[in-house]
C-alpha cells in the first residue's frame, strides 16, 4: 500500500516488534515464577537471565521506535499519543523484571497454601497483557476490533484483581510471621502491577480511539 507511506509502515513494524519482545519478556516471567514455585532453581535462573535480556531488548526497541516516530510519520499529535503508549507498554516489561529481580534477591519461601493461586495470578497477568497486545495491533488498522480487545483487557485485569485480593485475605489469615506476610504481600502486589499496567496502557489506547471519533 504505497498510499499509506513507508514511515508509518516502519513505525508499526517496530511497534509490533516491541510488543512481541515485551510479550516474550512476560512469557519468561511466567516461566520463572512457575519454576521458582516448583523449586526448580536451575530453570528459574535460566528464565531470570532470559527476562533481563529481553527487557533490555525491549528498551532498545522502544528507543529506536521513538526516534523513528519523530521523523515525520503520522500526524504530530498522534506521535505524542504513540510515544506515551510505547512507554506505558515498556513499563509492563520493567515491572516483570522487577518481580524477577526481587524474588531472585530475597528468595522468599512462598507458602504452599497460595502457590497455585500465585501461578494463576501470573497467568492472568500475562493474559491481560496479551489482550492489550491484540488491542494495540488492531488499533492501527481496525479501531472497532481494538475496542473489543480493550474491553477484554479490562475483564482480565478485573479477574486478576479478584484473585489477588483472595490471596491477600488468605495470606493475612495464616498464622505466620508478620515480616513473612509483608514479604509475600509485596510480591503479590508486584505481580498484580503487571496486569494493572497493562490496563493503564489499554486506557491510553481507548483515549487514542476516542480522540478519533468525529
Amino acid at each position, binding site marked *: 500500500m504505497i*498510499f*499509506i*507511506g513507508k514511515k*508509518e509502515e516502519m513505525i*508499526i513494524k517496530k511497534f509490533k516488534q516491541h510488543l512481541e519482545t515485551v510479550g516474550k519478556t512476560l512469557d519468561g516471567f511466567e516461566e520463572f515464577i512457575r519454576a521458582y514455585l516448583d523449586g526448580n532453581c536451575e530453570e528459574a535462573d535460566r528464565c531470570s537471565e532470559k527476562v533481563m535480556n529481553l527487557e533490555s531488548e525491549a528498551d532498545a526497541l522502544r528507543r529506536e521506535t521513538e526516534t523513528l516516530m519523530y521523523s515525520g510519520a*503520522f*500526524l*504530530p*499529535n*498522534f506521535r505524542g499519543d504513540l510515544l506515551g503508549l510505547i512507554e506505558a507498554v515498556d513499563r509492563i516489561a520493567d515491572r516483570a523484571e522487577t518481580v524477577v529481580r526481587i524474588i531472585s534477591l530475597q528468595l522468599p519461601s512462598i507458602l504452599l497454601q497460595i502457590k497455585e493461586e500465585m501461578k494463576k495470578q501470573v497467568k492472568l497477568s500475562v493474559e491481560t497483557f496479551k489482550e492489550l497486545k491484540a488491542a494495540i495491533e488492531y*488499533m*492501527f*488498522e*481496525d*479501531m*472497532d476490533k481494538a475496542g473489543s480487545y480493550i474491553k477484554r483487557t479490562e475483564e482480565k485485569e478485573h479477574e486478576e484483581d479478584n484473585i489477588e485480593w483472595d490471596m491477600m485475605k488468605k495470606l493475612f489469615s495464616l498464622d505466620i510471621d508478620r515480616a513473612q506476610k509483608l514479604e509475600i504481600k509485596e510480591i503479590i502486589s508486584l505481580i498484580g502491577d503487571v496486569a494493572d499496567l497493562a490496563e493503564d496502557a489499554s486506557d491510553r489506547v481507548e483515549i*487514542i480511539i476516542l*480522540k*478519533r*471519533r*468525529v
Partner: protein
Amino acid sequence: MILYLIPSLLLGWGLGRNDSANIFGPPVANGIVGYKWAILTAAVFVILGAIIGGAAGLQTIGSLSSGTAFESSISILGGAISVITMTYFGLPVSTSQAVVGGIVGVGILKGHVNWFVLAKIVICWITTPLGAMVIGFVIYKLTAPWFSRIRSIRLQDKLITIAAWLAGAYGAYALGANNVANVTGALVGKLLSVQEAALIGGLSIAIGALTFSKRVMLTVGKRIIELDHFSSLISIFAESITVWIYSIIGVPVSTSQAVVGGVLGAGLARGTSLANRGMLYRILFGWIGTPVIAGLISQGLYLLFK
C-alpha cells in the same frame, strides 16, 4: 502612477501576511503542513485566484465610488493605516471592511458614493459568518459519517494530510480571488485595468503570504485547532467555500469572520456550542467599528493631502 500604487502594495502585503494564517494556520500549527511549503503554496494559489477569479470583486470595488485615482489611493491608504493601527491596539480588524470604509469615507466628502453597491457589500459582510456557519455545519454532517467509517488510523491520518493540502490551496485561491479587490479594486477604471489590478494585487498579497510571520500563523492556527483535526479542516473548507462564493458574487469579505463562522458551524454539528459574547462583539465591531474608523482616517488624510 507608482506613488498611487504604494498604498495598495502595502495593503496587499499586510493582507497576505495576516489572512494566509486563516488558511494555513491550523495545519502549520499542528504540524501537518510544513511552514515553508505552506507559504509557497499560499503565494502561488493567491496569484492564480486573483488572476482567474478576481475580476468580479475588482469591478464591484471599482464601482463603489467614482472618484479620481488620487482619491482612491488615499482611500486605500486610509484603509491600510486603520488595519495597521487597529492591529497594533489588538482590535478586531478586517481588511475588506477597512478598505470599503476608506473608500466610502472619501466618497462621502466628494458626494459620489454608490449606495446600492455599498448595501450589497454590507449584506455580504453580514452573511459571511452566517453563511460559513451553515456551510461548515452541512459539510460536517455530510462528511463525518463517511469519515468515521474509516477505522484505520493510518488511512485517517493520510486523508487528513491530503485534505489539509487541498483546503490550503483552495483557501489561498479563494483568498486571492476574493480579497484582491481590497488591494487594487479602488484603482480599477481610474489607474488600472481589471487584469492589471488582478496581477498587481495578487502579487502583493502573494509577497505578504511569503513573508508572513510564523508566529501569527501559529497564534491563529492554535485558536482554530482547539477543535480536532477533522473539525478544523471542515472549518477551513467552509471558510474557503464561503470566500470563494463571494468572489463569484464580486464582494470582498473577511476571511477571519468566515473562519469564525466555519468553526461555529463545525462545532454545532459536533454538538458543542463554541460561540461566546466576545466573539459576537468582535464580529459586530468588524461590521461597524472598522469601516467607521477607516472612513474617518481616510477623510482626515484626504483633507490633509488635497
